[in-house]
């Protein structure tokens, strides 16, 4: 029983990180119909940027993450601007373009921060909470709360603000949105910037739990992507459920199947997607090719 509960706690903690990654994937997808394959690498750049400001410049952790979010949001704008000429013309090239950006960002990180990477010390120094023999890290609780609050804020933004509503309109029908005076390019740019900022938030929060190096992006990127699909690609609430789901699934598979856990997780994932291709929350499939 104790093993089960402790595994659940471990799974939820990493799951919160996957959920934040999934949010960014989903936001860009629902707005543009595009899978941003550089998303994981953007998260990695965010983690490195955070580590520079937190460890080298000695700024407070929260401020360092804030700066990382802004820096990667700008990076998101740059990626969107480079890809914009292809919007509505060649979808495949856009997709390949994002893969290219991912490879480039990973190489760039090695040049700037080196191949060795760095361990980020935890900003919280409190002892783990002990509940009936269970050990719960205060930092894990923080990450979970941040993931939940961020989801709520994002849902609020999309449903209750003018810009958010415009983005929803673009997501549903870009041509109709254009005809009522909504700037599709700007809407896409905002989606990319927020998506990249969310990636930095995920990467920055993952820093003290994991280890920041150039391959961090592919590690959390692939799980985040799976989380977004599982929750229903493009669905914001689905992203957080999918993220926590993948995290917990991963943790239990690791305990039960050891070295075969990846195989089991993705096999189960494949079966779930076959049974329910639209994911748990079944968002309408966007196709803008």
């Amino acid at each position, binding site marked *: 029983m*104790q*093993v089960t509960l*402790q*595994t659940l*706690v*471990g*799974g939820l*903690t*990493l799951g919160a990180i996957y959920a934040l990654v999934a949010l960014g994937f989903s936001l860009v997808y629902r707005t543009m119909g595009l899978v941003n394959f550089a998303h994981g690498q953007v998260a990695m750049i965010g983690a490195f940027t955070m580590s520079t400001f937190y460890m080298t410049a000695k700024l407070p952790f929260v401020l360092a993450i804030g700066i990382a979010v802004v820096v990667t949001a700008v990076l998101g704008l740059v990626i969107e601007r480079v890809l914009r000429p292809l919007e509505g013309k060649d979808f495949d090239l856009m997709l390949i373009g994002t893969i290219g950006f991912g490879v480039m960002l*990973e*190489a760039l990180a*090695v040049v700037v921060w*080196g*191949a*060795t*990477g*760095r*361990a980020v*010390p935890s900003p919280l120094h409190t002892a*783990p909470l002990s509940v009936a023999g269970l*050990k719960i*890290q205060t930092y894990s609780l923080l990450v979970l709360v941040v993931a939940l609050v961020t989801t709520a804020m994002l849902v609020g933004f999309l449903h209750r603000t003018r810009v958010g509503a415009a983005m929803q309109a673009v997501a549903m029908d870009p041509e109709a949105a254009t005809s009522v005076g909504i700037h599709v390019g700007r809407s896409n740019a905002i989606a990319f910037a927020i998506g990249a900022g969310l990636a930095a938030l995920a990467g920055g929060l993952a820093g003290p*739990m*994991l*280890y920041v*190096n*150039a*391959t961090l992006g592919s*590690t959390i990127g692939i799980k985040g992507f799976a989380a977004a699909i599982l929750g229903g690609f493009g669905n914001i609430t689905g992203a957080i459920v999918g993220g926590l789901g993948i*995290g917990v699934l*991963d*943790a*239990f598979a*690791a*305990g*039960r199947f*050891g*070295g075969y*856990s*990846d195989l089991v997780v993705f096999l189960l994932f494949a079966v779930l997607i076959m049974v329910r291709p639209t994911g748990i929350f079944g968002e309408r499939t966007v196709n803008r090719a």
Partner: protein
Amino acid sequence: MVTSRHWFVALATGSLLAAATACAAPGSDSGSSSSSGPIKIAVVDAQSGQLSSLGAWELKGAKLAVQQVNAKGGIDGRKVKLSVFDDQGDPTTGTSIARKIVSGGYTAMIGTAESAVTQAMNPILKSAKIPSITSGQATAITELGSPYQFLNGPTSATYDNTLEEYLTKTKSFKTFAMITNNGGYGVGEHDAFTAALKASGIEPVVNDVVTPDQKDFSAVLTKIRSKKPDVLFIGTEEVEAGLIAKQARQLGLTAVFAGSAPLSTPVYVQTAGADVADGTLVSTPYLSNDATEASKAFAAAYQKAFGETAELHGAKSYDGTSIFLAALKQTKGKGGLAMADAVRAEKYDGLLGSFDFDDKGVGIHQTVIGVISGGKLGPAS
């Protein structure tokens, strides 16, 4: 539709042409190294991907050895030229690099840091008679039966036998738990340490395998905690070992951590946190930069050249490269079997100890036990 078919035809023609040229290449620019101009040596290591930190250290060690020889006038009046290939820690990439090394006329190869990649490249290098020296430590490498394959350090069996003896005899620890991963390195550690324990009649209370990419170890660590072992043996690469140690202490596990080379690195200490890493027992052929006069000189030169502190992997590749360069001096720059024989005949006093290569290509046959204290590795009592 027509356009895409045109594309396909063009692509197919292109790849056929490429294949034809590739087949023609060996005739025009093939194999054996020339006897004038610089001596070409290839460094093959991961410069990108998960294992790139290892690759970066190795490259620095090799570079330093070559710089020092070139500064003294090279070998037989010829300069040594080092070329870097990025194997990404991937065996498939390794085999294509092996072919490039053969067709590029390289005399010898330094690398790789990954046992699996070394094993994949071995047959191609063997048939081309190109000597190579790896930092891999899997026992499987010694069983490849190639006279051109050398190891710049001890095998997993040597590391783990020394460690097991120290833990059971000197420290009188009774119960052991093991975590290893199912990558090339981890499998070697799993087999070597399990065998060493078995020889003493000990069965580990938990012997679990994880994946190299795993980040959360709650399940296995909670299970281990309930068994209360004296020692937790960790057989994974640096970062993963650090994460396991950190999470183990967070979950209230009190066992002593033990393992080989990866646990002696600063990456392990930083990932786990210095307070968690303290007390970790490590089997290593290279205790510290201050151990001998030679290691002091090496560490100073390393610091000067790269602006960072030297560690085991740089020292290993520095030793391996130096041995190869010394052998090339004997053969006056000639590669092939003459060079391989010269390496075997070489009695080299290196940073890791006295090299004396056996017919399996292993030059170092012992390790020492170190302990991490105050975040630094020192000799264990």
